[in-house]
Every structure is written in structure tokens, then in C-alpha cells.
């Protein structure tokens, strides 16, 4: 993952949305999904191209959960803490992950290995509690199984 995104690619994304200031969120989403985070230089470029002040971009980038202003780890762990998973013991799964990775939800470890997030429903409540790592779903987790799964990424 490069530290910066080249300007040409940013301009392409902006052009795809006709340079419309009202498309700001869509532009940022596209950059986020491609680059996994929003570096300051990229935001400045978007600000210039869309003619939207940086304050508004910062407001949006910090308000919505999809955006990250810091780099993400190479493995993204999502723990579902939707109600169904919660009552089936999602907290115990989360405790175990926090314990093993040393990070809290919203954080990335110093080696940029793991990023941990909680999500509110992955839509597969039958499998709860659910943990998703890099898009792969692990269902019916217990703390012991969580530990086993995480060890595979070490």
C-alpha cells in the first residue's frame, strides 16, 4: 500500500462524478475503498478539484464511519456486535481479539498488521457471534476458537 495516491487517479475519480461538489461523499468512498485510508495530501487534492473547503472535507471524513484518516493494517478484523451477536457473546470474542492483538476497536497495531473494528450487523445472524477477517466470515465463535483463528494470521 503506497503512502500516497497519485493525483492522476484522484482526478479520474473526481471526473467520474462530474466534479460535482455534492458527490464529495461518493468520491471519498471510492478513494477509501481503493486506498484503504485518506491521506491528507489526497484530501487536499479533492478539496481543490471539487472546490470544497478542507473544513467540510474533514467534517465528513471524521463523521462517517467508513473513512479512516490513518493507514490500516494488512489484516482487517471486523467483529460483529449487532444485537443478535451481542446476546450470543460477541463481547467475549472481542475481548479475546483485543487481548491477542493488543488493540482496541478503531485502532491499528504499530506493525500495521491488524486493524480492529466493530460492526453493527453483517447480516448473517444465524452464524453469530461472527468475526470477519479480510472478508472471510468465521461464524459461531467462542473465545477459544477466536484464538485459534487469529493464530493463523501470526
Amino acid at each position, binding site marked *: 500500500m503506497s503512502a500516497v495516491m497519485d493525483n492522476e487517479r484522484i482526478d479520474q475519480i473526481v471526473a467520474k462524478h462530474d466534479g*460535482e*461538489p*455534492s*458527490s*464529495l*461523499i*461518493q468520491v*471519498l*468512498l471510492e478513494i477509501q*475503498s481503493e486506498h484503504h485510508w485518506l491521506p491528507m495530501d489526497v484530501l487536499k487534492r479533492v478539496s481543490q478539484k471539487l472546490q470544497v473547503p478542507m473544513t*467540510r472535507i474533514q*467534517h*465528513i471524513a471524521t*463523521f*462517517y*464511519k*467508513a*473513512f479512516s484518516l490513518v493507514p490500516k493494517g494488512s489484516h482487517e478484523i471486523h467483529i460483529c*456486535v*449487532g*444485537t*443478535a*451477536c*451481542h*446476546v*450470543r*457473546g460477541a*463481547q*467475549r470474542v472481542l*475481548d*479475546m481479539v483485543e*487481548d491477542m492483538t493488543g488493540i482496541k476497536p478503531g485502532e491499528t497495531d504499530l506493525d500495521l498488521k491488524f486493524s480492529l473494528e466493530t*460492526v*453493527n*450487523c*453483517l*447480516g*448473517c*445472524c*444465524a*452464524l*453469530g457471534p*461472527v468475526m470477519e477477517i479480510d472478508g472471510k*466470515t468465521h*461464524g459461531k465463535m*467462542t*473465545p*477459544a476458537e477466536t*484464538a485459534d483463528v487469529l493464530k493463523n494470521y501470526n
Partner: protein
Amino acid sequence: MSRLNSPAELEEFRQGILSKRDPDKPCITLCTGSACLASGSAGVAEAIEAEIEKQGLQGQVEIRKTGCHGFCERGPIIVKNPEGICYFQIEPGDVPEIFSETVKEKKIVERLLYSDPDSGEKIVHEDEIPFYKNQERLVFGSNGSIDPKSIEDYLAIGGYGALAKALVGMSSEEVLEEVKKSNLRGRGGGGFPAGIKWEGSRNAPGDIKYVIVNADEGDPGAYMDRSLLEGNPHAILEGLTIGAYAIGACEGYIYVRQEYPLAVENVMLAIKQAEELGFLGENILGSGFNFKVIVHQGAGAFVCGESTALMTALEGRVGEPRPKYIRSNIKGLWNRPSVLNNVETWANVPLIISKGAEWFTQFGTEGSKGTKIFSLVGKITNTGLVEVPMGMTLRDIIFKIGGGIPGGKKFKAVQTGGPSGGCIPEELLDLEVGFDELSKAGSMMGSGGMIVLDEDTCMVDVARYFMAFLADESCGKCVPCREGLRQMLKILTNITEGRGKEGDIELLEELSETAKEAALCALGQSAPNPFLSTLRYFRDEYEAHIKEKRCPALSCKELIAYYIDPDKCQACGRCLKNCPAEAIIGGKKKIHIIDQEKCTKCGTCFEVCPAKFAAVTKISGVPVPPPVPEEERTVIKKSKKQ
């Protein structure tokens, strides 16, 4: 494909599709909704395709990858048509047998059938399985029979017929009247009558008006809108277009969470297909009506499910709500009249138009017409999406369809309405579901989350859970929500962690009152509901936490301890081996004990202790008994004891 310019051309096109389809041709439908994908249905699809190729059955056996069938507990699901044989929990390894037995020999593979948990009886067809049998799947039923990526599948089951009927056979007033007569109420939360909302926009001044699909389904544990959008996107587009015609809108938006990638993909494809065939765009079906639809991906903010916040987000700004002195159907997106309904509401519209309001109103109760899809999850045997007529009792939904509580546990409550709703206790299980009935019980319909809670669920923790969710999702614009919820969360957390004190309940009630009265939008106004409803029905649990520092459900981590009963421990070593914290001290023929200092209370020992010993117990409200002295720790086998 060229554009269809009239209802006659549409009908001709439909007949063309049907004439090419042989109803007797073997077809394997496979659920590829998000839930089944998570349980591995992509692998099953590959296996089926490979088997078709291996057996040289291309063109003779069809595979149809459909959206969610609803019975997520037993996914991945296969239905072999035309016989309608249902197989559950399919793995790629089962596929060759399905082909050799069912496809070729027309025999049934017994072991893959649904087996009734009570009688053990094997059931072959979907409509005989209790989970499906007791439902009324008007809106959700098509999901299991069409490929959401194929507009032809949708047309084959009569899709866009309602649109043709509305645009060419009815005036826009008539369409509006029909929807008003149906008394269709919003399925997203508040239950506001859709027809009245539409009429407001229709009569509002201005030439430019909008219709919007609220697919920002954010209630944790609810995924019916997701499944509808993923599984039957054309139905929503058709409903939206009919709505646009009724109010005179020329542009529609679908606000869908980016966390739902499959829904985004399928709805974008559906729009493209509908444009190609002329169900969207200029002069739709030769009626002179123009309409286009734009997809806007939500970037993740629960508050954006609120109408004014959603519209602000559509404008590319931070999704904060505004006071509603003027409703958004009069002044909404870009200050223009905008009708916002949720996915399920829109999906009901084509049914009402094609079959009539009279047909629609035969389902449901006096105040709540039609059906409602619920996401039946939590401590329930049959997790899944269920569609039932309004007025069915909670007991029937949970026990007849849902199969009751797994593991022989006792039902405690059902949480409906998501973070804005509340918990309904056992004594109200015979309550008929409906907008007004649920509100009266201190909960609400909400978007249709139905989370079943059993005796192991702590009600104070449930209230704390929702408060934590809402405090985190509060946009921060108004004080009662931003500060009030934070304080409520602090107090509830204190209670669940054993720091509750006299007066906490009263203070929580006061904060609730303030939020209800003074918060800007529904998020804050309804935020106290989970607390208030649990207090109303489970006050004793709050008091036990505060006064005795005891969690009656043995769930709150800070208030419980794990303890091995020395009289029951048989030194099997399971807990010792599995404890991730290495907190268990034991050995061969030695009674195991838990080092309370090291114990992280993860509960692994409790789970792995064999049921025949049941030596590990949870205790709360009393001190942990001191460990057995070293010299008395030799296990005396039960059988040898007199």
C-alpha cells in the same frame, strides 16, 4: 435488448421469455444471499457448475442463484425444481450425490432434508416445513425463485406489470388513491401512512420533486431490507417508479449503505437493465412519464436513516437532522418536496397496484395492513427472515415459526424495533404484532428487528448495549442526545459493572424524560426506550445489580465469577487444557480450581465442562468459596463414592 414502448410490447416480451422456458426442466435454485454466502454457498455454486459440466448436462439442468430464502439457520439452501425438493446445509461435497440421486434418478437424498426437531420426521417441500408454512410471504416470496441479476426472471413472474398498469391504465390520482386506500404504513420505523406522505408531496408547490428509497438499514440485527434489495431489486425500482408517477417526481434516489456491497451491485445492475428495457428513462412504456434513479452509497452513520439527515447526506454533506417544522415531503432534498420510504414499503407498492387495495387490506389488522418482514434472530432455533401478516402473535412467530429457544433455555423477552424499540416480556407474548400494539407495550415496530432473549440475557446489559450504540451514533447536534445519552450510558455501565448506587434509576428516568421531550430527531427521542421498557418489565434486575451487586442472568462480567464445584469435578482436564488465560490449576486426579486473579471470565471452562459433570458454575452476588486445600484435592470417582 431494445426499449419496450407500450404495455402490449411488455406483454409480448414476457410471453417470449415464458415460451423459451420449460417448466419441467430440472432447475436447481441455490440461495446466494449474504447469509448463505457467509455459510459457504459460493463454493456450492461452483460445485454445481462443475458437476453440470462433468456430467455433460449443460442446457439440460439449470442453476439459478437466487437471493435470500429466509431460512438462514439452515443455509446454504438448495431447492430442486420442478419438484420443489428442499435441501439444507449443503456443502460442496453433497453436490455429486444430489446429481446422481435427485437429478438423474429422481430420488430424494434423505439426509439433506429438513428434519423436524420434535418428531424427527423428514420434510421434502418448503411449504410443509413449519418455518415456512406459517408465514405469508407476499413481498419476500419471490426472492427464492428469481435470480436478482436477471431482469428476465423478474419479468417472467409478472414483473413491471404493476408499472404498466399504473402508467397507462391509471391516472396518477388513482394510483395515489389506491395506495391511500391500502393504508400502507411505512415499514422503516414510525409507521406513517405512505399515501398521506405521498399526497403531501404531490400537493406541495414546485415542479421538481423527488422519491427516495431509504436503504440505510442500520438496526443491529436486522437485515430484511438488505435481503430484499439484494434478492429482488427490480421490485423496489418498480415500486419507486410507481410512487414517482403518483406524486409527479422525475428523479429518484436509493440511499444504500456501502456496507452492503452485494445490494449496491445488484441494484446498480437492475437500474441499468431497467433503463435498457425502458422501465426507467424517458417516456416510460410510451406513457410520456420520465424518471431516472441514482444510487447514493451511505458512508456509515446510523443517524442517516433519519429522513432529514439522509437528505442532507444525499446533498453531499454531513448527515445531521434538522428540526421538522416543515416536513421533508414538503421541503426535503435540495428544499424540494421529497418522499422517503424504506425498501420494504416500496416493495409493497407493486403488489398493491397490481392486486388492488382491497386484496392488500385482507391481510393484517384494523390499524396495520399487509404483512411485515421480521429479522428473527438472537436466542432462537430458526434464525432467519420471516414475513407474517400483521396481527400474528409474538408467540406464534417465536415458537411456531422460530421453533422456540435452543438448548432447552427459557424465553425471557423479545426486543423489537432496534435501538429505538424496547423489550417485551413473556407475559405479553400473546400480543398481536402491529404498529400501535407494539408502541403501547413500550416498544415499537421499527424496521422489523426481532431479537429473542433467553434467561441468560441480562436486561440491564441489553439497555446498556443499546445506549452504547446510540451514544456512539449520536450526531452531536443537540444537547439532550449528545450529552444525555452519554450520561445515561455512564450510569448504565456503572450498574452493570457493580458500581450502581441508590438514585441511579431515578436519574436515568429524568434523563430519559429530557431526551424524549427535547432531542431534535427520533434517534434521541426514542433512545431511552430500551432502558424504559426493560425498567418497566424487569425492575427487579436493576435492583439486584444496584443493591446486591448481583446479576440475576449471570451475564455481567464484572459481577460474576466462575467456580469449579469440588464435589462435582472429576479432573477430566478439559477446562485446564482449554483455558486461554491459563487460570486453571489442576492435574491428574486432582480437583481443578480457578485462579480468580488470572481468570478473564471468558467462559471457556463453563462451556467445555462435560454436561454429565457440570462442575463449572457461575456465581454472582456471593463471594467465591475458598479453594479446597491442597491435601484434600484428590478426586474420588463418583462411582466409587457411597
